[in-house]
């Protein structure tokens, strides 16, 4: 399973490849180079990192040791969630901050410049997406009781189940992906999302997204709380 170190290395390699592409061919429109070279790898890394933080105890069979040092399972859940969200938020912001001047230098060869306001919106959108993916990855690890199973389930859920659900008329407007897209469109109207958006207002989209996250995290917590630890 990908450890945080390998997640970071993979994101770094993708960012460097993206910078090389920008150096050779330029930035393109709508900051798409950032979306492809940093945004997408960071999203995958966020799923993997969320799964790792919640699943390391399952992967190494150390949950019983953790709970015999401190049996408070709610405390363990909240601590892991806080650490995962904080680190992913920090990593997202730092990586985009580091990439900005480097990509700027590469784009300057072609007489292009990074629009700061658009870039700010892109970072904010990526930050929100990554926080969502961390929770989904972590929750599905807890629900499946397995790190490998959780990562697989998270990828299938986000890229297959939720995508299929998103194209269902009416009901699809309430899928996690469509709600997230509604929020991202509100932040960055020019961005290219996976979904078209439903037309829900931002508060409605936030409520739908929150319901999904609370539901998934709640199921994960219930599984952790009720399960016998082997």
């Amino acid at each position, binding site marked *: 399973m990908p450890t945080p170190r390998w997640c970071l290395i993979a994101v770094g390699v993708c960012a460097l490849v993206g910078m090389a592409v920008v150096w050779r061919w330029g930035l393109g429109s709508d900051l798409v180079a950032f979306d492809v070279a940093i945004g997408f790898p960071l999203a995958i890394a966020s799923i993997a990192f969320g799964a790792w933080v919640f699943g390391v105890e399952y992967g*190494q*069979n*150390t949950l*019983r*040791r*953790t*709970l*015999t*040092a*401190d*049996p*408070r399972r709610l405390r363990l859940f909240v601590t892991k969630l806080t650490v995962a969200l904080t680190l992913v938020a920090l990593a997202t912001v730092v990586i985009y901050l580091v990439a900005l001047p480097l990509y700027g230098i590469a784009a300057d060869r072609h007489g292009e410049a990074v629009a700061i306001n658009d870039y700010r919106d892109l970072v904010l959108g990526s930050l929100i997406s990554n926080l969502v993916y961390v929770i989904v990855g972590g929750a599905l690890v807890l629900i499946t009781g397995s790190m490998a199973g959780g990562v697989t389930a998270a990828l299938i859920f986000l890229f297959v189940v939720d995508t299929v659900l998103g194209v269902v008329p009416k009901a699809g407007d309430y899928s996690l992906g469509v709600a997230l897209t509604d929020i991202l469109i509100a932040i960055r109207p020019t961005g290219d999302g996976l979904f078209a958006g439903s037309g829900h207002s931002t508060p409605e989209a936030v409520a739908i997204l929150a319901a999904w996250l609370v539901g998934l995290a709640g199921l994960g917590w219930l599984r952790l709380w009720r399960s*016998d*630890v*082997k």
Partner: protein
Amino acid sequence: MLASFEGVGKSFGDTVALEGLSFGVPEGSVCGLLGPNGSGKTTAIRLLLGLTRPDAGSTSLLGSRSGGRSFAGAIRQTGALVEGPSLYSRASARQNMRIQAAALRLRRPEAEIDGLLRLVGLEERAATRAGGFSMGMKQRLGLAIALLGSPRLVILDEPTNGLDPSGIVEIRDLISKLPERGMTVLVSSHLLSEVELMCDRVTIINRGRLVADGRLSEVVGSSGDGARYSVTVSEHEVSAAVGCLVSLGLVAEPMGRGLISVSGPVTDGSQLSCVLAAEGIYVSGLSQNKPDLESVFLSLTEGGTS
């Protein structure tokens, strides 16, 4: 009692793991938990540590009911090694201990970590990744982790698994000396001879039920067989000796080559010698065969293997 079970029942689907289990571990004792495979030993330990919940009854640890408000405080004063060592394989032995020290919120644990690594013979491998350890070394590290923070109660599930004979002796000596450090020990083991050497109390469970509990000497002495003696006389005097002993209300059984197995209400073996001498029968050998933990275990568990 530092740990107690009161009418505990636990089932996994249709399988009854524990049924009406009640016993306690007094402070300062080294209590052996014995039972055949699948008798419920590990389930009992997991219930005690709050890793699983009972279907009936309750457990308590250091006076705190499992799952209760003060349970977290009680478990911090309890060291445990359950179903083999639970280690972070990418972390070194020292890092594994530091992680546990942080979880227990120990302040400045380095001296204690050094001492425990020395105690279990891992001081020279402190910087080695735990994933590269042999089973015996992992077991030693697991034991060191269980002793971190000087817990009042130490719960060890098969602590000598994977150890070589000299390692077993070292760990056995270490465990039997833990009460001198103010620790009480509950240890499950399938090595009956080891339990007999390191424990002063023993609890035997079979098919999820308690079948014996008490001081080791009491449990062994209560086997119901009483003392058995082996008496050796000349082969041509065996029948006369047996007749004499039977007439005294004893059970005497010829075993061949002049050996007679005698059991019954005999308080002193020399009585047998005197009785037979009075009949003109010379006793050339007399020994007492005391029941041991193994024979008691086998009789109580209907020959089950641990």
